[in-house]
């Protein structure tokens, strides 16, 4: 009972539920557990920062403790917001996110140091990414608190589902249709919108908006997807006309590949649609249909477009391909790291281009080794599991679908980028949630976590005695009804 005995509010109150005496019971909010875990995460992050500084600058700056405390204070404020506005929220979600974000900050700082040394050698100007990432973290936490304040009940979101769907679709399509002055082509993908010094990826926002839309759409149109059509080889195939929503999603995701040249975003969106249909209908045939459609689309895209061929070539032959330099450096880095890693600050992860964005997992693998990377991936898995847990426990279908979709979106994102970095699937430009440098992704993921916290709060909150007591006759005055013979 090591973990549970650390704080008293952990255990359920004596005389818990199900006594049948009608006594009011206190459900544990477990906010204390959350705070303890947050402090633990802060300790880990401070240790990581100390190690980086010990290894790279051979003396610890005296401010490290302050950095650690500032980190704890930042998440402490978020904890207070959760305590105030979502008291029954899942106690694990926020600490896990803090752990990932903090470790990400340290890794970015570490790569900054490496990049700065390189830039100095080459005589280039260099601006570190860690300070802006700290700003984005703060902004993300503010947005998380705002989500908790303004979305008091996740079911209200269902009322705005079509608005969300429309705005999401527009946001998704915006970089593709805008002229390249506003939407420049960065690293072969047209995903960003640049307004002066600010640049962001609208797809990160679109992801959440479309998730809300799909959840609400599927709740109201669930029947459509379960109507069985012809039976073929022992599988109930859906009717051809019911395929329309899937085909639309498929066309949109193929459109992203073609117009925005980004396989990762496309895979993410299509995967989310498929999984949500699967959660709503419990019929695996949708997954099969979706995957075969996607495979066909990818094959077509491969034969038609040069940039897709380039990516696949870099994936299959990273050592010989022209564009495989980044991936091969990452693979060498991970091989250098081995089981235990080179220790924080002991490796050279900065050699890989874009080490702090796309390849931060490679940097983590080089310095923390297989063991450290496995711990990181496990934390992602736990985060998803908590999302799915909230989905299981919440009492309305919309919440179930939304939480399931949000949780899965995070996992799919990690799979796509981790698969790409390790050479399992062709590399695509998705960000590693919370870990990688990138403002829009971080802020978007904090909004996602805010929604998850809200749904988990709803799922764990004990039922209030329903406020507007329905006018129903007392049992003694119940209607006299004709008793029918049971069929």
């Amino acid at each position: 009972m090591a973990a549970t005995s650390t704080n008293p509010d952990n255990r359920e109150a004596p005389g818990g539920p199900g006594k049948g005496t009608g006594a009011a019971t206190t459900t544990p909010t477990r906010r204390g557990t959350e705070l303890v875990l947050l402090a633990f995460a802060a300790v880990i992050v401070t240790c990581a920062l100390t190690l980086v500084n010990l290894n790279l600058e051979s003396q610890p700056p005296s401010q490290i403790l302050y950095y650690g405390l500032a980190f704890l204070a930042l998440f402490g404020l978020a904890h207070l917001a959760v305590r105030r506005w979502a008291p029954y929220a899942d106690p694990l979600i926020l600490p896990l996110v803090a752990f990932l974000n903090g470790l990400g900050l340290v890794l970015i700082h570490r790569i900054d140091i490496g990049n700065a040394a390189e830039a100095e050698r080459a005589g280039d100007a260099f601006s570190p990414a860690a300070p802006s990432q700290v700003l984005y973290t703060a902004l993300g936490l503010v947005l998380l608190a705002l989500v908790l304040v303004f979305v008091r009940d996740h079911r209200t979101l269902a009322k705005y589902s079509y608005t969300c769907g429309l705005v999401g679709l527009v946001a998704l399509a915006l970089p593709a249709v805008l002229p390249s002055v506003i939407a420049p082509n960065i690293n072969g993908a047209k995903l960003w919108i640049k307004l002066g010094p600010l640049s962001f990826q609208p797809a990160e926002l679109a992801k959440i908006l479309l998730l809300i839309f799909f959840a609400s759409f599927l709740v109201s149109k669930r029947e459509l997807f379960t109507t069985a059509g012809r039976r073929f080889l022992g599988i109930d195939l859906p009717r051809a006309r019911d395929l329309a929503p899937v085909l639309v999603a498929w066309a949109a995701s193929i459109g992203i590949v073609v117009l925005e040249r980004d396989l990762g975003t496309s895979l993410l969106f299509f995967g989310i649609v498929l999984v949500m249909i699967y959660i709503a209908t419990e019929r695996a045939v949708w997954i099969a249909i979706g995957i075969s459609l996607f495979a066909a689309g990818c094959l077509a895209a491969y034969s038609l477009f040069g940039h897709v061929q380039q990516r696949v070539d870099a994936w299959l032959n990273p050592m010989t391909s022209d564009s495989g330099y980044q991936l091969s450096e990452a693979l060498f880095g991970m091989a250098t790291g081995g089981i235990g890693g080179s220790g924080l600050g002991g490796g050279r992860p900065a050699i890989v281009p874009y080490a702090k964005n796309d390849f931060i997992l490679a940097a983590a693998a080089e310095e923390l080794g297989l063991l450290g990377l496995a711990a990181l991936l496990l934390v992602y898995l736990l985060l998803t599991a908590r999302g799915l847990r909230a989905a299981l426990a919440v009492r309305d279908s919309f919440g179930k679908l939304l939480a399931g979709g949000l949780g899965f979106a995070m996992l799919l994102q990690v799979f796509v980028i981790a698969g790409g970095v390790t050479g399992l699937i062709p590399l695509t430009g998705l960000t590693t949630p919370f870990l990688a440098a990138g403002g829009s992704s971080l802020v978007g993921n904090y909004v996602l976590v805010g929604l998850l916290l809200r749904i988990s709060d709803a799922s764990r909150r004990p039922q209030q005695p329903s406020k507007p007591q329905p006018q129903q006759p007392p049992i003694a005055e119940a209607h006299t009804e004709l008793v029918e013979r049971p069929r």
Partner: protein
Amino acid sequence: MSELVIQLTRAGFLALLWLFVLVALRVVRSDLQSASGLRMSVPGAGKKSGKQSRPKTKSPRQLVVTGGALSGTRITLEGRPIMIGRADDSTLVLDDDYASTRHAKLSIRGQDWYVEDLGSTNGTYLDRTKVTGPTKVPLGAPIKIGKTVIELRS
């Protein structure tokens, strides 16, 4: 810095990472137990609570949805009445075309739970019998509301 210190801190940090994961898993485990109504009856969790949670007569502890769109959902019974229907303030919110806004109510009297139909259009069935007045619900008996099936479990 000496090589030994580097190696020690390296291993120590990895251990710390895994300790965090293990503590998180621990929280998951205790959460699972409290949510499933087992209430910490793990060995060594204290004999007092272990005895408390095993009353002689088995009274229902939770309501489990076994069929329909919400299947898998569990609600811990806390003595308060449970409203079932399409209304947003219901304890179990159904979105089922065959359910009424306020469809049925489960309430406790003494040790037993009673199901009562609140004038729904399509009726409430307890074990294939239409519920007309407050009817006692035995453990494990299916209650059918529209396409949703629920039952009480201890």
